[in-house]
């Protein structure tokens, strides 16, 4: 009950007018910035973080948590409406969300995403209070070999994510992994495949790839066809998902919430893996996997909940140990230090007002987001009514500035345009873009974990079958590979039986 008391204290801090204002400002600014095509949470936070310098730590953190949550949801809006993910974790949302928009169900997709995020966000804040301390012990037992097994499990599901030719999915995955190896190899300090560009030493930013392939690659395709994207705008009914939608979505939301929280707790894994493990799981468990990629609402509800829930999970190692669980919490950690707070195991004891104030305001932020978004979705959907000759240049301009603003790098702008050509060609050749983006994100993590493990064991492969969690995860990865084969045999046998 102590946690509950402290949470109450947190709420008393969070609902002071100043902090409430910061929370509101954060969610609004975050949503607006995130909803600008091409500008996602990472660009949003790197633009806004320096501006928060000088505010008192609690208020600044509340502002940032608001910006973060808002930008995440803003990214969902662009993913659904114009197929433009602002963050790696929204890539899965584009797969079915954009299809739903094309079918005139943009409002429903956004509504379900908002409800799913809200439910997941709420549950994850509660989980954060209840199980933070025991869970962090489990998270720490994850060393490089465990991460390798987890990432491998992620990789094995990539190829199965998109319908269509498996050969093409594999081809694209290899391409993405290759792109991800460019840059300075941290484990040896050697530059590789940088072709003497210093800008490439830190690797290719995933955002450049995602915005290039999805956003302005699509613009080029539209230029060729010069068609108005065929949205069925007449049937946009509203934002409230109907009973059938809820029937389909409640299980994915529940599973996504717990999966997201657990993956989020693991330092370094974060929302991307959570969202796409959720998508892969839903597709595998579904009785109609063929609906995925064609506008299945489960494909929006699951990953969106998992993603949102992982933000709560990521706060666990940050607040209990001072270790960031995701890229964004890493920036938040930096911000903490900027404000003169030392992150670490004593943060809960030394600055309880700060920690619980932030947790409580995350909750309030979730409520604000839900109200704001449900109210604004009809407005957002109007984006689809902007004529092409304005919308397309707008997407190009915002994408350009957004990609530039992440690292203030003109080089990234050039790279963005190159990837837009790649995206256009991939679209022409029917090559799925999602595996490429995801493998760019996962590639470095898999490689690093593998090589760290082998360094730890002085080159011996024993390390992969002498650690129980590693073995379990590796078996799960193999099961994921074998699952389609099992299904295929079962179908075949059944068909054989029918025929005879």
């Amino acid at each position, binding site marked *: 009950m102590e946690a509950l008391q402290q949470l109450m204290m947190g709420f008393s801090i969070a609902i002071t007018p100043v902090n409430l204002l910061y929370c509101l400002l954060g969610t609004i600014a975050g949503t607006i910035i995130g909803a600008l095509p091409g500008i996602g949470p990472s660009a949003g936070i790197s633009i806004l973080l320096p501006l928060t310098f000088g505010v008192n730590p609690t208020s600044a953190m509340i502002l940032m948590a608001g910006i973060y949550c808002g930008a995440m949801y803003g990214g969902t809006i662009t993913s659904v409406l114009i197929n433009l993910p602002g963050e790696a974790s929204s890539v899965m949302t584009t797969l079915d969300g954009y299809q739903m928009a094309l079918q005139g169900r943009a409002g429903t997709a956004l509504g379900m995403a908002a409800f799913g995020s809200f439910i997941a966000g709420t549950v994850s804040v509660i989980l954060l209070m209840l199980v933070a301390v025991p869970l962090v012990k489990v998270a720490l037992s994850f060393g490089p070999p465990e991460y390798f097994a987890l990432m491998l499990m992620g990789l094995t599901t990539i190829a199965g994510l998109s319908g269509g030719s498996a050969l093409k999915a594999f081809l694209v995955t290899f391409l993405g992994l290759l792109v991800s190896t460019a840059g300075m190899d941290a*484990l040896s*300090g050697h530059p590789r495949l940088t072709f003497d560009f*210093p800008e490439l030493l830190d690797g290719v930013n995933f955002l450049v790839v995602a915005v290039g392939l999805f956003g302005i690659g699509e613009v080029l395709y539209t230029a060729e066809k010069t068609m108005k994207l065929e949205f069925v705008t007449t049937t946009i009914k509203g934002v409230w998902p109907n009973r059938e939608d809820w029937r389909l979505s409640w299980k994915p939301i529940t599973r996504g919430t717990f999966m997201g929280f657990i993956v989020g707790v693991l330092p370094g894994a974060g929302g991307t893996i959570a969202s796409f493990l959720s998508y892969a799981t839903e597709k595998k468990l579904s009785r109609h996997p063929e609906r995925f990629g064609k506008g299945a609402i489960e494909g929006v509800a699951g990953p969106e909940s998992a993603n949102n829930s992982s933000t709560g999970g990521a706060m666990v190692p940050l607040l209990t140990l001072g270790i*960031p669980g995701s890229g964004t919490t890493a920036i938040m950690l*930096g911000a903490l230090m900027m404000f003169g707070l030392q992150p*670490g195991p004593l943060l809960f004891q030394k600055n309880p007002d700060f920690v619980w104030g932030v947790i409580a305001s995350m909750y309030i932020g979730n409520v604000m987001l839900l109200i704001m978004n449900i109210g604004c979705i009809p407005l957002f959907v109007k984006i689809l009514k902007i004529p092409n000759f304005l919308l397309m240049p707008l997407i190009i301009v915002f994408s350009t500035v957004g990609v530039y603003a992440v690292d203030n790098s003109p080089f990234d702008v050039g790279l963005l345009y190159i990837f837009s050509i790649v995206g256009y060609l991939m679209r022409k050749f029917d090559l799925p873009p999602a595996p490429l983006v995801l493998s760019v994100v996962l590639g470095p993590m898999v490689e690093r974990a593998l090589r760290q493990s082998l360094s730890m064991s002085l080159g011996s492969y024993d390390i992969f079958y002498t650690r129980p969690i590693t073995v379990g995860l590796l078996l799960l990865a193999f099961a994921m590979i074998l699952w389609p084969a099992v299904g295929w045999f079962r179908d075949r046998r059944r068909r054989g039986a029918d025929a005879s």
Partner: protein
Amino acid sequence: MKSSVCIIRVIVLALLTVSSAVLSMGPAEAASFTPNRPIEFVIFASPGGGSSIFAEVVGSIMEKEKLVPVPVPRVYKPGGSQAVGMAYLHEKKGIPYYFGSTSNSYVTAGLTGASKTISHKDFTDIAILAFDEMVIMTRTESPYKTFEDLIAAAKAGKNIKWGGSNVGGSDSILAAMIGKAAGVKFNYIAFQGGGDVNAALLGGHIDVASANPTEVMQQFEGKTMRPLALAAEQRVAELKGLRTLKEMGINVVFNTFRGINAPPGIPAEAVAYYEQVTKKVMDTAAFKKYISDNFMTPKFLNSVETRKRYDKFAQETSIILRELGVVKKK
């Protein structure tokens, strides 16, 4: 098309005359230099890290205490292990309206392959303001109670896993220097950043790691990590009981400097002016709070001393970097 090119040319020419007129006014006023347009404080890294906090603190002090009569906006140019930001600053040759935030990696970038053509020698130095010490630690459950235990185990041929940031970065240089001085070899494992290293250390996946005190002070207080040694010249006040490597007979001193530099070829009056400003920054309460919050050592080095310090650091580390196999090939 032709005419538009002409118009642009005219505009550019007009601007050039105007700006050169403005600049030529400077020397006329002779020795005294006063900035009359905003000074960009360039950070060669992303927001959140040590050099970003330094630049935000120093820049905001200059603005708030009116130490300079113009704004000092902070501009982030990360990438290429500092090389991208360094190239950006280097392009502003002769313009005294840019600062750079320097740290160890600013010097090592010129030694490793990261910055191909530019090194620390190609900039104007303003000053060094402070030093960030480095502490070596294990987790509390670790069997290594003292630093000597660790060295003894390494001498006995045990696989001592030392975690840190990328090879070529500060952690790896420190590990290699200690290994060399003590005559042992550590199994260095690179992680993506300080957070990942701390997680691996707390989980017992690595044996030992190093960090700036501010990053791990709470871990010591919370008894999750145990400090083993300090790589500083002298003990620090907040960790009184912690011995330095020198006291243990290992002759290694390694710290991170926090300094300011400027584009090459800026007027001497500007350098003198900024040296004075920097001194005034160090006298403010806000700067003193920053130093004590982060357990740093304040020390002012002027332009000339700063260059000497960089050169000495470059000389010391280039040997280690060559042994790590990451030195630039001629």
